[in-house]
């Protein structure tokens, strides 16, 4: 499957304006490092249920509910751990074939 360009990424948390925003900044930075064009939006868990996305990132306690609802769902616990997020995204993107040269 070819990678959507840009990737639509949601960062989620309970209210959609605290930790999801922090996570959005981390995710934007990591995706830039990976040279993957992406549009990252922070939102709350209940709004996210009604939204389409290619990637969903949040704390594990929130992302469990999204398994299977987006091609890539990543649960993290430390928003400051950019290397950890990059590793998780790299593995998940590889599994999708998103890191191969795009047509």
């Amino acid at each position: 499957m070819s990678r959507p360009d840009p990737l639509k990424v949601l960062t989620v948390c309970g209210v959609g304006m605290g930790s999801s925003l922090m996570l959005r900044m981390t995710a934007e930075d990591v995706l830039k490092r990976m040279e993957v064009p992406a549009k990252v939006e922070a939102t709350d868990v209940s709004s996210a249920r009604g939204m389409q996305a290619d990637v969903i990132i949040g704390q594990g306690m929130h992302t469990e509910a999204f398994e299977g609802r987006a091609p890539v769902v990543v649960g993290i616990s430390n928003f400051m751990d950019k290397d950890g997020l990059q590793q998780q995204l790299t593995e998940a993107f590889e599994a999708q074939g998103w890191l191969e040269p795009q047509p």
Partner: protein
Amino acid sequence: MSELLEEAVLVGRARRPAGGWRDAIRVACDPLVEREAVSEHYPQRCIEMVEEHGPYIVLAPGIALAHARPEDGALRLAVAATTLTEPVAFGHEDNDPVDLVFAFGSPDRDQHVGLLSALATALLGGLADRLRAAEDDEALQAALAEVGDGG
């Protein structure tokens, strides 16, 4: 620095006791209530957010960011940082125990983006250690000031 950041309330408290995570959230919100940056029922709403959605506000090891919605009584753009004498457990699988609690409030859903962005940048730059090292309110307040300068 943006005008909004300039007007934001930034307040710090060092080494306060707290009996459990609910009390830690109240203690962290106290300076915002005192400054009338949030209403008196705002701390309780912050606690209810965790009761409803889980301890997701513990966003890195030892660090919690307590907040509620604008309509829950956030009157001014504000952030408070409080270090605890004894760490408390929030029930977070990976990031417990917590010894640094931020409380923030934003009167609308857009204003806070610059402030939280500055806070995230400062945290990634080692702000948490500088706040933890502060022995009194004055020192903590001085360390926190970089958030307002760095926007």
